[in-house]
């Protein structure tokens, strides 16, 4: 290695090592420890014998873990699909409107991100209050004459998850909106003006010019949505509790993991081995799904 290479190596180390050290110690090390934990059986808080993949077999093959696990994954999938379809489309819609500089767009640009600033506790509480049977939302429906549409939004098995997702969308839609706004603003104005002058219609311009050019931002939002949907926890915890009430319909692998690994007053003592196994599955799924989507979407990128 030449002197220049050695010096370059030292510079790289200087820039990268401090951050890497923190990430390694605080994130990766405990991750490996919990991976380690998942290979043992546990008696309460004490580690027992080595059981290899025994805990994983428990999660996938024995009751009640199996039903709970697949029920939870199903809910995570619901989270992902609804968030992708509703939140990100809305984000795209808002981003597009704002890029078209509708009247008041400077104001709306700022307002749209405010819900992100609330703490999750505040959001869960306030919306929990509004979604009560005699709360604001039902009252509003009654006002509109749609009284028959009143429901127990957080108490009905068929509606609870969707209600929580709706609140989550309220909270986060500002983020994809601004990201898409930025991306659309990056499309060269000359391209668009030329298209307009050629008489192309709005829809065509959007589909053929804008959409392909903003694929990188779509990738980022998709990956973040996948990660978010797999890790969702606090929103559910504050609105319907740790047990996925009512009747496990809001349960996700996040709440399942927390319940199993740490226990709770009602659901019992911690099962560290099985809980760590669920944690490992969460890691694997998140990692795998992110890599997959990055790879797939990268192929769709279009350069100008």
């Amino acid at each position, binding site marked *: 290695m030449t002197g220049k290479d050695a010096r370059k190596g030292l510079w790289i180390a200087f820039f*990268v090592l401090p951050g890497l050290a923190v990430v390694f110690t605080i994130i990766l090390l405990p991750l490996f420890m919990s991976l380690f934990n998942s290979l043992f059986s546990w008696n309460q808080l004490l580690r027992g014998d080595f059981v290899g993949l025994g805990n994983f077999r428990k999660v996938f093959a024995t009751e009640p873990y199996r039903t709970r696990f697949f029920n939870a994954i199903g809910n995570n999938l619901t989270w992902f699909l609804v968030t992708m379809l509703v939140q990100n489309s809305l984000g795209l819609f808002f981003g597009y409107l704002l890029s*078209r500089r*509708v009247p008041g767009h400077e104001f709306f640009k*700022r307002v749209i991100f405010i819900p992100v600033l609330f703490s999750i506790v505040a959001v869960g509480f306030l919306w929990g*209050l509004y979604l009560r049977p005699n709360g604001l939302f039902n009252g509003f429906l009654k006002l509109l004459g749609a009284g028959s549409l009143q429901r127990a939004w957080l108490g009905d098995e068929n509606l609870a998850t969707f209600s929580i997702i709706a609140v989550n969308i309220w909270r986060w839609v500002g983020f994809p909106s601004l990201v898409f706004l930025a991306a659309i603003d990056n499309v060269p104005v000359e391209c668009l*003006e030329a298209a307009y002058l050629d008489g192309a219609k709005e829809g065509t311009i959007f589909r053929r010019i804008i959409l392909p050019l903003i694929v990188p931002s779509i990738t980022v939002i998709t990956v973040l949505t996948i990660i978010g949907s797999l890790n969702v926890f606090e929103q559910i915890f504050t609105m319907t509790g740790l047990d996925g009430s009512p009747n496990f319909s809001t349960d996700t692998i996040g709440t399942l993991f927390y319940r199993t690994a740490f226990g709770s007053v009602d659901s019992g003592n911690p099962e560290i081995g099985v809980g760590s196994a669920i944690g490992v599955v969460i890691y694997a799924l998140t990692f795998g799904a992110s890599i997959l989507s990055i790879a797939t979407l990268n192929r769709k990128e279009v350069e100008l």
Partner: protein
Amino acid sequence: MTTDLRFRGAGPGRKAVVLLVELLLCAYALLVFYPLANMVLSSFRSTRDILRAPFALPTAFDLANYRAVWVDKGFGRYFLNSLWITATAMTLVLLLGSMAAYGVSRYKYRLSTLVYMLFLSGIMLPLKAAIIPLFILMKKLALVDKPLSVILIFVAMGLPSTVFILAGFMKSVPIDLEHAARIDGCNDWGIYRRIVMPVVAPAISLVTIYNAVPIWNDFFFPLVFLQSDKWKTLPVGLTSFFGQHSTNWSLLFTGLTIAVLPVLVLYLFMAKYFIRGMTAGAVK
């Protein structure tokens, strides 16, 4: 601009569309301000009152609740703790994150992708899942009940996304600027500090808001690691209003209002740079 969706001078069809869109956006804005107003107004009422009539206006605007929360419950100290812990963590995130992003994006070497992926993996791994090993680790480092423990955790949580975002920006700084600086005698640190960082300044505000808000609002890690009253942060203080069988809604709303104010101020102050940051070739 021809691409603007304007109202004046437009045909009736377009006017209708603009009107509809405005209505939609206004409705959303209402949906944003109402909970905020609700929260602030509720902080002036008693718990029983809030439960009885959640949407009524307060009868008096005395600051008794605020005094109770700030002085009696010690929120003054928690607020300061949150402030300096968040500020320290953010400074470290920006410093270490920008350095790491620089080291990953401005040099070509075989390990660069691996290092980048190592940082990125931090986004995908929920740290809460490893709380017991993490606690044992902190115990070994003798950091339990010391603010440094949560500061390190927050930095570790903020680095991956910071590196992800800043590396993207830094990649697009033209190499010529760097060459010119080297000819002028700048070393690598000088290039980082004087050339690259100023160019990605808009992204800094984006990264700041993106990380500062979750750090400010996090209650889990300070709850587990900071056990002495003198180190507690604001969100941890809020948990003291949740009893086993009763919740002190009145003081809770007061605490939440106090907690959201700095973030709101920071955001409104940085909004201009923040939005510019997102608009400056961000996503690549």
